[in-house]
C-alpha cells in the first residue's frame, strides 16, 4: 500500500490546487528560460537566415545590429572582385515605428538585393516572394498584417504579398522584407516640406557662388531632386554580405577584405558573437539571473508547502511510528509526495506554457535541453524542499499519537 498516494487521494482537491500553484510558478520559471532562449534565437536568426560567410561593415563599427553602419553601394562590386568570393550583395536593415490602423507598429525593415534576391529563402505561410522591384513587401505574421493589405510607409503604399513565420529582428520586432530600394526609401523618407527646404538651401548656396552668375543653369539644376544630382551620393547600405566560393577559404577572403581602410570584416560566427556579447548580453544576463531567482523562490515555496503538508500529518506520522513503522516508510511518504507534487507541477507548467507562451509578444522557445534541465532541477528541488518536512517528521515522538 502506498501511503503517499492514499494521502493524496484523501486530500485530492487540496493537493491539486497546491500542484496547480506550483505549476504556475514553474511555468514562470519555464517561460523565463524560454524568453532567454528566444532572445538568443531572435538575435542570431537573421544572421543564420541570411547565410553570409562574411559581413563587411563600416570601418570600426560592430555591424548593423549593434550600431549604425554605412557603406557605399559600390562596395558590392569591389567585393565581387576579391579572389575566392562567389557573390556579394547589399544588406539594408533598420527598425521603424509607425502608426497603422490606429495602432503603433514596430517593423524591422530588411532590404532584399533585388533582382538577385526575391526572398525565396524566407519561410512563407501564405502568399509569395517579391515579384516586382517596388511597392511589395513580405511581412512576418507577428506584425499582424494580412495578405493583400496595403501599408502606407512614408509617401508610398506597399502591398503585403507574403506572410512569413519566425522572422524576428534582433530587437524582437517582426521583419518586413522589401527590395533594397524600397527599404532605403522607407528609411530615408522625407516629407515634401523638408525636400523643398533642402532644394531652397542648395539654391541659396548656389546663388552665393560666383558660378551662378557665369552659369545660371546650374542654379536651376541644383534645385532638382537629389537623386538627379551626380554630386550627391546615392543612399548607402548597412552592410555588404559575401558568400565565399565552395572550396575557397573564408579566412583568406576576410583577411584580404580587412586590408581595405574603409571597412571592418566579420565572419558569420564573429557577427553572432558580437551580438550575443554586445547588444543582447545584458538582457541575457538579466533574464538568466531572474530565472535563477525564480528557481530559488520556487524551491522555498515548495519547501514551505511540503513542510505544511507534513505538519498536517504529524499525528498520523506519530501513529505510524507507534505501530512500528520504520523511518524509511515515513521518509518515503514525504519524498514521494514531494516528487508527485513536483512532477505534477512540472506537467501543469508544461501544459499551461504550451497554451500561453505562443500568445506572448516575444518568442518563447522551449528547447528539449532546457525542458530536461528544468525537469532535473524540479526533481532536485522536490527532494531538497522535502528535507524540512523530513526533519520535522523525524523529530516526531510516537507519544504525540496519544495526545
Amino acid at each position: 500500500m502506498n501511503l503517499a498516494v492514499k494521502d493524496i487521494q484523501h486530500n485530492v482537491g487540496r493537493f491539486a490546487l497546491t500542484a496547480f500553484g506550483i505549476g504556475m510558478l514553474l511555468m514562470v520559471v519555464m517561460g523565463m528560460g524560454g524568453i532567454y532562449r528566444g532572445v538568443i534565437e531572435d538575435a542570431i536568426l537573421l544572421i543564420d537566415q541570411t547565410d553570409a560567410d562574411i559581413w563587411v561593415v563600416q570601418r570600426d563599427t560592430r555591424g548593423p545590429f549593434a550600431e549604425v553602419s554605412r557603406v557605399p553601394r559600390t562596395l558590392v562590386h569591389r567585393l565581387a572582385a576579391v579572389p575566392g568570393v562567389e557573390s556579394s550583395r547589399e544588406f539594408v536593415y533598420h527598425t521603424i515605428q509607425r502608426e497603422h490602423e490606429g495602432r503603433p507598429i514596430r517593423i524591422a525593415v530588411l532590404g532584399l538585393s533585388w533582382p538577385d534576391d526575391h526572398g525565396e529563402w524566407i519561410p512563407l505561410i501564405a502568399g509569395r516572394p517579391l515579384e516586382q522591384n517596388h511597392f511589395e513587401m513580405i511581412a512576418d505574421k507577428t506584425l499582424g498584417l494580412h495578405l493583400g493589405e496595403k501599408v502606407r510607409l512614408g509617401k508610398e503604399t506597399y502591398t503585403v504579398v507574403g506572410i512569413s513565420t519566425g522572422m524576428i529582428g534582433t530587437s524582437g520586432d517582426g521583419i518586413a522584407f522589401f527590395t533594397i530600394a524600397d527599404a532605403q526609401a522607407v528609411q530615408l523618407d522625407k516629407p515634401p516640406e523638408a525636400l523643398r527646404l533642402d532644394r531652397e538651401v542648395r539654391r541659396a548656396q548656389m546663388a552665393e557662388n560666383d558660378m551662378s552668375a557665369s552659369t545660371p543653369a546650374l542654379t536651376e539644376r541644383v534645385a532638382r531632386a537629389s537623386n538627379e544630382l551626380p554630386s550627391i551620393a546615392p543612399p548607402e547600405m548597412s552592410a555588404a554580405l559575401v558568400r565565399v566560393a565552395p572550396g575557397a577559404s573564408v579566412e583568406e577572403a576576410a583577411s584580404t577584405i580587412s586590408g581595405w581602410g574603409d571597412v571592418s570584416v566579420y565572419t558569420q560566427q564573429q557577427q553572432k558573437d558580437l551580438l550575443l556579447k554586445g547588444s543582447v548580453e545584458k538582457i541575457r544576463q538579466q533574464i538568466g539571473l531572474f530565472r535563477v531567482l525564480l528557481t530559488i523562490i520556487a524551491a522555498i515555496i515548495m519547501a514551505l508547502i511540503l513542510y505544511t503538508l507534513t505538519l498536517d500529518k504529524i499525528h498520523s506520522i506519530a501513529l505510524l511510528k507507534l505501530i512500528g513503522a520504520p523511518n524509511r516508510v515515513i521518509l518515503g511518504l514525504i519524498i514521494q509526495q514531494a516528487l508527485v507534487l513536483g512532477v505534477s507541477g512540472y506537467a501543469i507548467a508544461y501544459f499551461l506554457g504550451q497554451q500561453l507562451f505562443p500568445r506572448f509578444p516575444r518568442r518563447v522557445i522551449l528547447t528539449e535541453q532546457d525542458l530536461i534541465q528544468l525537469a532535473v532541477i524540479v526533481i532536485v528541488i522536490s527532494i531538497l524542499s522535502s528535507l524540512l518536512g523530513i526533519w520535522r517528521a523525524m523529530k516526531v515522538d510516537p507519544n504525540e499519537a496519544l495526545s
Partner: protein
Amino acid sequence: MNILFDRKPSLGKHVSDNLAIETKALTKIYGSGNTEVVAMRDASMKVRQGEIVALLGPSGAGKSTFLTAVGLINPPTSGQVIIGETLIYDGPLAMTNLRLFRRKHIGYVFQKSNLIPFLTARENVQVALELAGQRGGSARRRAMELLDSLGVADRARNLPSMLSGGQQQRVAVARALANEPNVILADEPTAALDSHRGRQVMELFSNVAREHGAGVIVVTHDHRALDVFDTTYEMEDGKVTEGIVTGS
C-alpha cells in the same frame, strides 16, 4: 488498600504461568531540581500470557505514564521492563530496537480510536500487517478476516470519519491484533463509548487474551465491566497497588 473486591478467586485456566509482561520498580521523573515531578514510583506488575489486567486510578495517578513505559514509547528513569523473556528497558536504556519490537510484539488501543484518517478501515489494519512484512493480497485478506471477526467488515471501505465511535474502536482493536502481539495495551478504550458498547469492547479484549494468549493491560475508569478482568491494579500518586484477582 483496594476495597473494591472482597472475593479472591484464582486466575482462570486460560491464564498461563508464563509471563507476558513484567515491570520491576519502574520510576519516571520529569524535570529536575525545583521542577522535578515524579510521575511514577517503583511500579511493579506481572501479567501472564492470557491474562487481562485492569489498571484503575484517578487522573494524574501515573496510569498513562506506566502504560507508555510498558508500551516502549516513553523510557522510564529507572527500573526494568521485560516482555516475554526479553529485557527491553534497563533504566532509560533501550536494550533492543524499540520500533521493531513494538511492530512485532505490541498492540495498542487508545481512548480515541487513533486511526490514520486518510486510510479506510481495512487499510488501517492492513498497514500494520504490511509493516510487519505481509504483502498485498494476504495482508488484505487477513485485514478483512480481523474486521469480520470484530463485526465491522461491512465498513471496510469507509474512512474513519465515516465510522461511529464504536466502529472506530473495533477497527483499532483489529489493528492491534493484526500481528498477533504478545502484549496488548489499551488506554481507556471505552471512554468514548456507551456502556453497552464499552462492555462489548472489554469482552473483546478478554477474548483476545484468552484466544491469543496475549497479556492485556487496560487502563479504565469504567467500574461496570470490571468482572471481565482477571486482575485489577490501582494506581495512586505514581504507585501501583498489589493486584487483586477478580477474574472468572
